[in-house]
């Protein structure tokens, strides 16, 4: 064995002050060197990407802004070099409200304002959780009914075109456009989430019959594309109804969407419930909580927190899939735009229409995903 002498080293010990790293990781130059030009391949890829981005952006900018026509009232004002935004401008109200009577737009606006008034307290951190939950449940259970009643009006009062009664009846056949898209998405989401949660609990339940039924429902609805479910809802559902009972198309579409969507939410929520450690169940059991209390206060809240991103992701998919309702004869925003582009006064402006629709979808879906990101980060700090 070698006997070392550490004495000199130990007596030379002295505490060192903190120094700054010689590499300034925050500088732009450092970032570019590390991420863009770190090797020859990386440099090459950076240059190629820049080139592609430049070409695409230039093309887009050229068409959407530089060569675009912004003023005028008819299609003759537009040359075909760039985008013809007056088409969108002229048809804008149509895109938003469908064929709803113009003098009654305020009813729809009121529904939107009501939504805003309810959603703000739900998202505000300053407000007590209890109150936020109250507003949240209003949004889920009460608001859709009030909203539907407002948009629909009183069935016994017919609308005359020039001077409609403020509460006159506007049948769902007149609904359309962005309003239709939002109704389908909103109802599809808020009705399906609670059903999905119940299905998930059913699937994990100890009771064989409930478990079986949940599994069958989930697997059938998930195994079939939405478009097929919509067809079934519009063709098959009426067969089961007594003859003479006319079932509203919009309701049929909603039922189809809810079947489909709740099955997806069910699987998402089940994933969250399965991620809850066994110890949580045991601690709740040992403290005497019954199944309902354990689920409502302990396991479900934790599971839902985990699956927020997936729930939002699934909801975004739904919002986009609502365009499929055109196949059963409902006019969502995309369908209205397509129809408007076939107007003989505005022939051939499909591109502008699609860009506009894409932009609208993007705004809604992107805000949803940002909100989910925010929730994720907010709950992230409480992880253990």
């Amino acid at each position: 064995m070698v006997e070392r002498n550490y004495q000199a080293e130990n007596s030379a010990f002295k505490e060192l002050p903190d120094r700054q790293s010689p590499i300034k990781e925050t500088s732009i130059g450092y970032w570019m060197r590390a991420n863009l030009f770190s090797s020859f391949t990386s440099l090459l890829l950076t240059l190629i990407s820049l080139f592609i981005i430049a070409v695409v952006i230039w093309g887009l900018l050229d068409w959407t802004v530089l060569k675009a026509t912004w003023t005028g009232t008819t299609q003759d004002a537009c040359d075909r070099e760039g985008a013809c935004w007056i088409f969108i401008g002229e048809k804008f109200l149509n895109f938003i409200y469908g064929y709803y009577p113009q003098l009654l737009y305020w009813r729809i606006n009121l529904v939107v304002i009501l939504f805003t008034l309810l959603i703000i307290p739900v998202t505000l951190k300053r407000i007590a959780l209890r109150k936020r939950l109250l507003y949240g449940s209003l949004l889920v259970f009460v608001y859709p009914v009030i909203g539907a009643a407002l948009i629909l009006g009183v069935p016994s009062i017919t609308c005359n075109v020039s001077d409609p009664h403020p509460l006159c009846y506007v049948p769902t056949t007149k609904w359309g456009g962005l309003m239709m898209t939002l109704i389908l998405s909103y109802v599809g989401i808020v009705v399906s989430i609670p059903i999905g949660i119940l299905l998930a609990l059913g699937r994990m339940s100890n009771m064989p019959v409930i478990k079986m039924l949940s599994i069958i429902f989930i697997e059938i609805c998930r195994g079939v594309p939405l478009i097929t479910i919509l067809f079934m809802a519009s063709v098959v559902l009426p067969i089961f109804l007594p003859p003479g009972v006319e079932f509203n198309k919009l309701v049929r579409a909603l039922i189809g969407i809810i079947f489909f969507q709740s099955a997806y939410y069910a699987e998402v929520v089940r994933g969250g419930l399965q991620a809850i450690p066994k110890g949580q169940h045991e601690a709740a059991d040992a403290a005497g909580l019954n199944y309902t209390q354990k689920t409502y206060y302990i396991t479900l809240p934790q599971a839902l927190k985990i699956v927020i991103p997936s729930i939002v992701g699934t909801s975004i998919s739904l919002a986009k899939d609502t365009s499929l309702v055109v196949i059963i004869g409902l006019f969502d925003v995309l369908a209205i735009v397509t129809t408007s582009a076939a107007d003989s006064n505005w022939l051939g402006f499909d591109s502008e229409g699609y860009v506009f629709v894409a932009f609208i979808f993007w705004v809604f879906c992107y805000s949803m995903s940002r909100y989910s990101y925010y929730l994720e980060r907010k709950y992230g700090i409480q992880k253990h």
Partner: protein
Amino acid sequence: MNKSNANKTKSGGAGELIVEISNLNKWFGSFHVLKDINLVVGKGERIVICGPSGSGKSTLIRCINKLEEYQEGLIKVDNIPVDDNVKNIAAIRSGKVGMVFQHFNLFPHLKVLDNLTIAQKLVLHRDQNEAKEVAMNYLTRVRIADQANKFPGQLSGGQQQRVAIARSLCMNPQVMLFDEPTSALDPEMISEVLDVMVELAEGGMTMVCVTHEMGFARKVADCICFMDKGQIVEKNTAKKFFEEAQNERTRLFLSQIISH
């Protein structure tokens, strides 16, 4: 001196029995995990259960509040049979038996205070103020009242386990079950939890404690059970257990855990 009096009454068998386990047998599938277990726990008695890994210690104490089912024999808690009757189980869990787990099992989405009040409110139907008062009282007893508004994830392991002990105590249990409460803790935190448990024992709490902390066992246990392969191999008073264990396997086990 109070304490030794109490000891005498129950070892004489005249004292009130909180837990009675008779001829308990349990299987996991075909695996016979508990064999003919007989054990009684009197009021104020402290029982420590030790034994090698896989010997069935956790399974045994988890049968007492029916976190595990058993197939043969009978367990009674305060004369209520632990059976398939939902009402009996609810009665046993709500205020008769408290449990502390190896991994604390606090509810991570609830603040410490809410961890302590939730079952009081839901199960014992106490109102918010009363539940909070009880909770703060026990948090003070485990010296952690200043953390009441934090989330469990913000506490150290030792603090979390003390919160878990307080959470069980809030339900005023007649007996506390501990399943290796210190074995998931970093060494420097073990003593803060053991101190709380010793105080609890000194306060007269009935305890059934699975642990390998032999210092703790020596200090508080009225009776130490050594389990191996699903059986209670030896049951003895603390002094006799350490000094003149009757069974060869017990002596071997003791030499293994005490030697290092």
